[in-house]
């Protein structure tokens, strides 16, 4: 097998994204097909990369001829590879739902490819500033995607996202500046090696700057004000894509921050605390929510909290749980967001729509054999083996709250005026649901990589 350079994964869609207007000049319709093909190509590349990483360990690639720490290094770790596959495989499937709408295809497709590429970039990069750049590209692309619906809500949501995102990027920059000021390097490995030489205060300051900055993107509780508004304003498929790409990339960045970059004990404690707050606030806020997209957004926040808890437990079992939760959440939430377009009723009378949505809800609520279940189960097992009953109690409580509002959600889809989705949307959610079922029936194909990712992260690797 040819070991393809990982940079292709970023470069290809970036390149093709800027070629899209050319295609658009020829035919507007072609753009969608073109984008889909590019994304599928990217998905295949990511799968190849995944196989390569699983077989040969971490893949490194130096860019632009300079050696680290000056040059930029790509390092694809196990977790990165899993997330790269997740993002790149789900991105064309979510994009599929875009077929059937005529408007705005060139700009939208460009932004879409851009965000795919940059989210992938975040999870495979080995350089702090590079990560920042990808963060910014992701953010800019996401701002555009959110606004792409061109309604008042879309603009408002997008603007709030921009404001918070900019503040967040300022914090990331300050964190980078602090680190660079002391260590004169931006490479992850270099930083990890020499982080102990930094004065205590500076180290903590940089940690705080970075976690505040990244937390905005990763939807952590006090920093996630934009989330409900942007999700509510955005079109459904954009919301779906946001929960697949940028949010997972953000949570990956947090994982790298607390595990490799600045692995201090209080960092884990802090992120555990943040995770609990995020979980409780998100799930509680969803309970009384009438707007479906907003409710799903709050639910996303809650899930992020759960993932964060799993990450910050610093154990193999919990990290495996985190991987399952991430995959489960990305799949299920994208189904729910796509399926909930025009969600006022009658939708679930169509078995082809009802089935995937039902499975999505099951996975989110944590029913076996879907990935959400394995995530929750292993998280619980890990917490139980520590005797952390308070956290278990909170998770249990929020899970019941989840049950209540998802049952309302299901009911709303049953009664009322009969509406339906476009064929491409149905196709998209059916594909997503089949992936969900496959992972449910054969969890070992996710479990083994997850274990490797967990071991690698615990060993300080990517």
């Amino acid at each position, binding site marked *: 097998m040819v070991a393809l350079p990982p940079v292709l994964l970023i470069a290809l869609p970036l390149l093709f994204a800027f070629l899209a207007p050319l295609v658009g000049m020829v035919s507007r319709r072609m753009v969608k097909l073109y984008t889909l093909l590019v994304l599928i190509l990217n998905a295949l590349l990511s799968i190849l990369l995944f196989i390569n990483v699983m077989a040969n360990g971490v893949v490194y690639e130096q860019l632009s001829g300079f050696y680290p720490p000056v040059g930029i290094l790509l390092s694809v770790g196990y977790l990165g590879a899993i997330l790269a596959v997740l993002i790149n495989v789900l991105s064309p499937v979510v994009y599929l739902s875009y077929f059937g709408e005529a408007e705005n295809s060139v700009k939208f497709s460009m932004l879409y490819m851009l965000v795919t590429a940059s989210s992938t970039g975040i999870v495979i990069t080995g350089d702090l500033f590079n990560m920042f750049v990808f963060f910014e590209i992701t953010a800019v692309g996401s701002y555009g995607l959110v606004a792409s619906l061109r309604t008042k809500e879309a603009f408002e949501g997008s603007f709030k996202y921009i404001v918070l995102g900019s503040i967040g990027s300022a914090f990331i920059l300050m964190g980078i500046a602090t680190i660079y000021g002391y260590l004169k390097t931006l490479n992850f490995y270099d930083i990890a090696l020499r982080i102990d030489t930094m004065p205590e205060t500076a180290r903590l300051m940089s940690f705080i700057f970075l976690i505040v900055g990244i937390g905005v993107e990763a939807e952590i509780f006090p920093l996630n004000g934009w989330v409900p508004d942007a999700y509510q304003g955005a079109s459904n498929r954009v919301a779906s894509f946001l929960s697949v790409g940028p949010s997972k990339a953000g949570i990956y960045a947090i994982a790298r921050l607390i595990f490799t970059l600045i692995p201090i004990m209080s960092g884990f404690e802090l992120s555990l605390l943040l995770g609990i707050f995020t979980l409780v606030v998100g799930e509680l806020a969803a309970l009384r929510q009438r707007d479906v997209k907003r409710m799903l957004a709050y639910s996303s926040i809650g899930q992020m909290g759960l993932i964060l808890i799993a990450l910050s437990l610093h154990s193999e079992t919990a990290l495996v749980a985190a991987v399952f939760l991430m995959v489960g959440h990305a799949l299920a939430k994208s189904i729910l967001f796509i399926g909930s377009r025009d969600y006022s009723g009658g939708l679930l009378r169509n078995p082809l729509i009802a089935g995937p949505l039902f499975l999505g809800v099951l996975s989110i609520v944590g029913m076996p054999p879907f990935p959400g279940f394995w995530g929750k189960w292993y998280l619980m097992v890990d917490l139980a083996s520590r005797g952390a009953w308070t956290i278990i109690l909170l998770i249990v409580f929020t899970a*019941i709250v989840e049950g*209540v509002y998802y049952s309302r959600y299901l009911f709303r889809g049953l009664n009322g005026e009969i509406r339906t989705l476009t064929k491409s949307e149905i196709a998209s959610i059916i594909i997503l649901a089949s992936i969900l079922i496959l992972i449910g029936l054969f969890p070992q194909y996710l479990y083994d990589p997850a274990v490797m990712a967990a071991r690698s992260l615990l060993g300080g690797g990517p």
Partner: protein
Amino acid sequence: MLMETFYAFIIGSLVVLALNRFPRIAAVVAIAVSLLPLFALIYWAPLVGLTLPSYLSLLRFETEISYALGPGTILLQITPLGWFFLFLLATTFPLVLLFASSFVRDNAGGFYASMLLTMLGSFGVLLARDMLTFFIFWEIMSWSILALVLRGHDRRAIVSYLAFGSLSAMLLLFGFMILYYKTGTFLFGEMALEATPLTLAGISMIVAGFAVKGALMPLHVWAPHVYSRSEEPFVAFLSGGLSKLGYFGMILFMYGVATVPFFATWGTFRGVPYFGYALAVIGAFTAFAGTVLAIMQDDLRKLLAYSSIGQLGYVAIGIGIGTPLALTGALFQALNHTFFKAVLFLAAGAVYYRTGRWKISELGGLGYKMPFTFLAALFAIFALASIPITSGFAAKWLLYEAAIEQGFLFVTPIMLIAGVGAFLYAYKILYGVFLGEPRHDVREAPLSQLVAMWILVLPLVVFLVFPGWVLDITSPILQEYGMQPVAHTPYVITTNLAAYNTIAVILALIGTLFLALILYKWKPQKVVPHEDNYLAGEPPENYEYISMHAASNYYEPFEDVFGGIFRKGAERGWEIVLAGAEFLSNGARRIYTGLTEDYSIYILLFFLVLVGWWLLW
């Protein structure tokens, strides 16, 4: 063949989904698949000491199996307890599907697929050897029930089922985690529980989680909504079969995983651990309150739902008392309830199939129009009311004996009075649906429905004559838990306090019926039309507008007395809990004010707090 059974169920459910457009073929496929557990049941019969002719066991099934499923391992093993409950489920299930073949019309593929998945889940639960397997199959069963509940399109049913379903799942999960923390293993067989408060809390949570499925009060709220808003074949299986799994779990965890000495560490009351006593009291309360609520219902399905709740309360009493007599009674009651409640729900379904009505006050006089449905329902109602001409009495008798044996002065009268209350609602069903004024010109139910009902009636009759056969298959369960089986012959059950000879009762009844028949056949009689009624000389003309049916508000004086206390009591309590959660939710929601300035203030505040926390402190 065991793993293949599971595959068959998964593949079968996919196939019937694909056959959505052809409900008949889907039904045939589903029934064919549903027979597999029955074969397994027959093959495993020697486990409980039954020797069946070898030609009955067509397929071979492993008694123990382990199967790696990704992160976990599925461990399955048949036990006598599992066999007993499998007997209830596996016999009911094909018949329920048979009934459904003529009952379920729209989207039948989805129905059969979900039904097969519920059975798949139950099958796994009954065979589970460790907590992971148990939980996986338990939840598969739970959510496939949810899929069936969704077909009812009822808000309260869906919301209450999913809410209580998650409550149950989470209680189980929490309890399992506690047990895992204390024992370090998931295997039922290897758990050696120390008597610590934490373990007790874990067991209590598990039992509470099962109580949700078994619809014990006050965790029963979902049951009436779900039972009254779903399709009858499913409800028959839910009430008859699936609700028993809650009690299966209780027995498994209270006597298989934990033991009587474990509970006795915290003291006993008249030879029964306080834990069991509390369960028995809750069960007695459920039996009573369920009965009272059943009496007050007008919707046939709601009535049957509350009756289910009440009758299952008896099972809880038996499990709580936990003596051999009581456990036998609980199992026997579970068996009876499976069959008679399935028959009743199916009969209700048949009535609905022909008339399109659910309200008791809108039905009436069907006894002469649908005589076979009526007779099946009559038998079931006799069993429900534990009249000693069906097997229903033997179970209640065992429970009463057990309670008296332990000297329970306060629980026993409640059990007895709940039994009397059962007469009231049993008669309400009989009168409101089958007797009285005929209002619908309908035919007898279709053959498939009749066959399903009558085969389900069969055990009630057989175990009336030979209750000892049930005790035969419950004895290995008791032996497994180190208890002395109840002394019995096929038709005499003997306890320390008294004996019950079914043959004597039946022969005496036949004799007296014979005497009565002689007396009765003495004179010829004339059958008059139904309209020929004495109404103070007022001839009932214009049937369209005058109704002589007294079934609406039938027990109105009763409702005057009890209605205020019991109606919606539990539901209101849970609504308060929900309102509390929603109050919290409102608080959480207010955080997201939708203003950039607030959001950026949050960020800055968070930053400052972190800085303050770490750098200054």
